[in-house]
């Protein structure tokens, strides 16, 4: 399967570098480049990419706003992979909360870049679970809302699977750990996403952290 990628970054040299790295892979193709978040929604409508690589800081419409607009205005939107220079950039978590499926450092190695794109497109496991946990810990609300995810009505099994998802385990790994079939896990995961009103694992895990259902770190 060939995956289409849209590159959004205001720095041409970052775009040209990433394009060379991505286009060197037989299964990945850069469909277009944009230098500002404002161009994202029209380009996605026209080109239907699978993954959008999105810079956070851009002059007119930043990556957070562009992600928000994309998810609000496009049916069956592509996955958004947020690009960032610094791990401790506060905007990254905002972008994840706005609906991005994962984030990646610009200093990532070329093989990590292409792996991240494939992983995100497959939607099968969480990208950089440890980094997401740290981000969630830093942005944990001062007071965890009472009840956590009670209103979502997860079964014990689904709650257990949500915790394993947060650890970054793929469906196959979860199945192996729980000694059930991958199909069963897939069904459970789908239920978790529906109950949490999450469009992917990242969003589900972030909600789990944010609601205090999973303590991000012992603080």
């Amino acid at each position, binding site marked *: 399967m060939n995956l289409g990628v849209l590159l959004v*970054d*205001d*720095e*041409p*040299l*970052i775009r*040209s*570098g*990433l*394009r*060379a*790295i991505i286009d*060197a892979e037989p299964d990945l193709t850069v469909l277009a480049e944009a230098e500002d978040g404002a161009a994202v929604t029209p380009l996605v409508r026209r080109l239907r990419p699978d993954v959008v690589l999105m810079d956070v*800081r*851009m*002059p*007119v419409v930043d990556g957070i706003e562009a992600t928000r607009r994309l998810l609000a205005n496009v049916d069956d939107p592509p996955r958004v992979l947020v690009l960032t*220079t*610094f791990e401790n950039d506060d905007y990254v978590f905002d972008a994840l909360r706005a609906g991005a499926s994962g984030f990646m450092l*610009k*200093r990532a*190695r*070329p093989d990590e*870049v292409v792996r991240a794109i494939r992983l995100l497109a497959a939607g099968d496991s969480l990208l950089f679970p440890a980094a997401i946990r740290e981000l969630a810990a830093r942005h944990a609300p001062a007071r965890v809302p009472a009840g956590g995810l009670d209103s979502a009505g997860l079964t014990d099994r689904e709650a257990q699977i949500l915790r394993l998802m947060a650890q970054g385990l793929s469906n196959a790994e979860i199945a192996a750990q729980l000694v059930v079939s991958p199909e069963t896990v897939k069904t459970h995961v789908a239920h978790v996403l529906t109950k949490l009103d999450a469009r992917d694992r990242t969003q589900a895990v972030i909600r789990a952290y944010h609601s205090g259902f999973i303590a991000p770190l012992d603080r």
Partner: protein
Amino acid sequence: MRGIRTAAGVCHDRPMPGLRELLAIPVRRSTWRRIAYLMIGGALAAPYLVLASFAVPALEGGLGVAGAWALTSAFYFVALPIVTGMLTTVRELEVGAARRLLDVPLADAESPRGAVSWATRRRSAAWFVAHLVLGLVICLLALVMPPAVVAVCLAPFATGDVQLGQLDPTVPGGPGSAWLVPLALLAPVALVYLAAGASALLARIAPRLLGPSPAEQLATLQRQAVQLAERNRLARELHDSVGHALSIVTVQAGAAGRVLDSDLAFARRALTDIETSARNGLRDLDHVLGLLRDDQAARAPTPTLADLQRLVASTRSAGIDVSAELTGCLDDVPQAVSREAYRIVQESLTNAARHAGHVPVSLHLTVGSEHLELELTNPLDASHPQRSGGGRGLNGIRERVMSLRGEVSAGPDAGRWRIAVRLPLHPAP
């Protein structure tokens, strides 16, 4: 209150000294340094004393000796020193001496308006009088005591009445006065304690009278806060610019490695871009570290729009054609707005030079009744497609505009790059 005052060194709230400490007072070096400071007060009082001694005989006839001394003392030891103490130089001398000899850490007074305020002058005058009067008393005691002590010690061996140095009272001679000898020998020790006590008193009131006033402390804190904010901003900019350059280097190097065998032209280009980005990053590093290191720059007054002419001139001398136009009167622009506006113009010019190269830049400043408007445009240069730096120069500008609740727009506009800033001249109610 104590929190601020601590910085000025007022916190001498020690518990009562124990016996051991009391005994140690005369052998401490600090005691003698303080007494030396006290003696300086006595020496400074000497001219006034001479003047007073001329005046007393003239007044004695009408007022009697005591009255004459009371009047002249009030004039020569209080009124005149008050006038002298008001002088800024006297204050500076006293502050310097108090720091060194009294061991009082006095913060520099930083007047909000540049000149020393009258409140501060009054406090200095009070200090000068206290220094002179206490110093004079101790000095006079030190002058009359030694001969008196000698006289008392010799009294048991004398046959007639013994006069105490230049003083009027006498001690009867003969062995009957022997009991006075130990007392006399204790007197110099008592004087040392008296002097130590007087100088300790001075040290205690020094911060209140010589230290900065609350207004001056506030001015100092404000200046430090501005400086700190500026440094934080520089650090953040550096973080951004070097991070940006290194990201480009990493991505381009990674890409070049990937396509080296298939696309040599790309790899070659990538090497050039890596070189340029790394160089830009280093240049920014150098620039900011230079600013941080340069104390002169940190202390120089922050430039305002009044300094715009110089900025434009220096930009021109860097080879960039700037046309600047001002509508309205800069005097109507509050300092805070003017300072930020200057920085915004400066950063916009830097951005234009960095992104567009040597292209003509036009700058329009309009001072309205409610707003300051600032517009900077330059042609988009097709030969400079690489906008290394991206939005980061703009981020600094945005931050400044936000802090003043203004508006900013930036972007291509009819073939030109245009940045427009609108700053309210008065804070919203």
